[in-house]
C-alpha cells in the first residue's frame, strides 16, 4: 500500500483530525501536570471515565455526554480532598479513581456485563470515530487551548511556585480548578483515541520527552505537541497498514521517542542540576 493511500478513506481523515487536536491538548496540559507532579491524575480520571461510560451505556445515552460532567465533578472532588482534607495528591487520586472503577464494575455487571462498546472505550477506537465526535473533539479542544492561552502566564507561575503565585495576586484555587477541569475534559476526549487504559500515557510521555530538551516553557509545549501529533499521525497510519491496535501503536511510538530523547540527553547532559539553596554563588 502506498503511504498516502490511507488518507483517501474518510474514517482515516476523521481519525487524523480528532487525533491531532486531542494530541495537542494532551501534550499541552501534560507539561503542566508533569511539572506539578500530577502525572497520575490522568490515570485516576481515566478510571472515573470507565465508571461514567458504564453509566452512559446503562442509561443508553452517548457515553461521552455522561462522562464529561461526571469526570469533571470527580476531578473537583480530587481537588477538594487535596485542599480541605489535607490529603496528598496521589492519595486523593487513588481514592476517587478506585471509586470510579468500583462503580463502573457494579454498573457494567448490572447492565449485563462487558460488551463491544465498553471494550472500544477501554482500548480506544479512533478509526471508528463519528462526524459528531470529531466536531465535539475539535470544538472542545479549541475551547481548552483558548483557556490555556488566556491563563498561560498564571498557569506557568503556579506550576513553578504556587506560594509566590498566590502572593502575586494570582487566584491559585481558581486556577487549580481550571487546570483540573481542563484535564478531565481532555481525558474524556482522549479515551476515543487511545482508550481509557492508555490516556495517562498521552498526557505523560510527550511532555516528559519535551522537558528533556526544551530551552524555555513555550518551547516545551511546542515540542510536546509536535511529538504527540507525530505519534498520532504515524500511529494511525502504522496501525492501519500493519493491522495493529491504534491506541497501543500511538503510545509505543511516544515511548520510543522518549527513549531516543533520553538517549540523546544521556550523551549530552545539561550543565548542572543543583537544587535551590544547595550550592554557593560564584
Amino acid at each position, binding site marked *: 500500500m502506498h503511504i498516502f493511500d490511507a488518507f483517501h478513506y474518510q474514517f482515516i481523515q476523521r481519525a487524523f483530525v480528532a487525533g491531532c487536536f486531542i494530541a495537542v491538548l494532551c501534550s499541552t496540559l501534560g507539561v503542566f501536570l508533569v511539572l506539578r507532579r500530577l502525572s497520575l491524575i490522568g490515570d485516576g480520571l481515566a478510571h472515573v471515565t470507565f465508571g461514567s461510560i458504564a453509566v452512559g451505556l446503562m442509561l443508553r445515552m452517548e457515553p461521552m455526554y455522561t462522562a464529561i460532567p461526571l469526570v469533571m465533578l470527580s476531578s473537583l472532588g480530587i481537588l477538594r480532598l487535596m485542599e480541605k482534607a489535607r490529603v496528598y495528591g496521589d492519595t486523593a487520586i487513588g481514592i476517587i479513581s478506585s471509586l470510579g472503577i468500583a462503580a463502573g464494575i457494579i454498573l457494567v455487571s448490572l447492565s449485563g456485563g462487558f460488551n463491544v462498546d465498553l471494550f472500544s472505550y477501554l482500548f480506544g477506537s479512533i478509526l471508528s470515530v463519528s462526524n459528531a465526535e470529531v466536531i465535539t473533539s475539535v470544538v472542545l479542544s479549541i475551547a481548552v487551548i483558548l483557556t490555556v492561552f488566556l491563563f498561560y502566564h498564571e498557569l506557568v507561575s503556579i506550576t513553578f511556585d504556587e506560594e509566590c503565585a498566590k502572593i502575586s*495576586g494570582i487566584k491559585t484555587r481558581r486556577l487549580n480548578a481550571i487546570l483540573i477541569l481542563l484535564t478531565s475534559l481532555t481525558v474524556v476526549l482522549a479515551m476515543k483515541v487511545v482508550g481509557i487504559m492508555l490516556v495517562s500515557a498521552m498526557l505523560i510521555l510527550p511532555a516528559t520527552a519535551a522537558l528533556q530538551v526544551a530551552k524555555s516553557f513555550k518551547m516545551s509545549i511546542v515540542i510536546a505537541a509536535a511529538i504527540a501529533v507525530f505519534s498520532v499521525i504515524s500511529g494511525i497510519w502504522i496501525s492501519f497498514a500493519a493491522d495493529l491496535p491504534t491506541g497501543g501503536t500511538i503510545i509505543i511510538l511516544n515511548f520510543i521517542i522518549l527513549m531516543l530523547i533520553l538517549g540523546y540527553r544521556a550523551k549530552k547532559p545539561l550543565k548542572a*542540576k543543583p537544587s535551590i539553596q544547595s550550592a554557593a554563588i560564584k
Partner: protein
Amino acid sequence: MNIISVNNVSVRYQSVEVVSNISFNVAAGDYLGIVGPNGSGKTSLIRAIFGLISIAKGTVSIFNQNISDFQQWHKIGYLPQKILSFNPNFPATVKEIVAMGLLAQKSFPKRIGRGDDAAIDRILVLLDITNIKDKLIGELSGGQQQRVLLARAMVAEPKILVLDEPTTALDPEAREKFFTVLQELNKKSGVTIMLVTHDIMNIGRYASKLLYLDRKLVFHGGFDEFCSSSEVTDYFGEFAQHVICHRH
C-alpha cells in the same frame, strides 16, 4: 506611618500553637529583621501575615486593608525560604521566571509582552544577572537561583520586600553584596524590608529594627533598645546579650 499591623496573631498547626499572640507594627521605610532560633515560628509568622496559612487568632492589615480582603499584591515582593516543589527540569529561562513577578500588576488576561522587557532588564542589571537571562533556572548554581528569585520579587518595584532566609545559599562575599543591594533599596528607594534570619550576630548591622521571636514575642524595637532591654537580658543572659551587641 504604619503599613503593616499585626494584632494578637496566633498560628496553629493541628493543635500545636507555633506562634502565640504576637502584636507589632511595621512603618513605611522600616528594615525589620525577624530573628529567632530554629522552630521559633519566624516563617510561620511571615506566611500568616501574607495569607499563605490561616491565622488561628488575631488580625493582620496591610496598607489599612485586612489581609483576607487584600488586593494590592503588586506592592509586595516575596522571596520564600525555599520553593516547596522545585523541579530542576523546570523549562523556564531566567527571564521567564523574573517576568512572573510582574503578573501582580496585570489585569485579565495577564500577559507578559515586549513592553515588560525594560522592567525585566533593569532588575537583571541591578542584580548582575543579565549574562544568564537566557539560561534555564535548573542550570544555575544555588546562589544564582537565589538572585533570580530575588529579581522576581523585586521586578514590580514593590513597596514591601519580604525575604525568608535569603542568604542561606550564599557565600560570605555574595552575602555582603546581597545585603548592600537591600540596604540601597531601603535607603534610596524607601522600600520597606522584612527579612527573616536566624543570624542574630549580623542582622543588627543592616536592620533598623529587630523582632525577636521564640513562638512568642521576646523583643521588638531598635538595636540600641535591644542592647539595653531587660527582657532581652532575661532571655539571653547578660553575657550573650553583651556578645551580640558587641559584634555590632
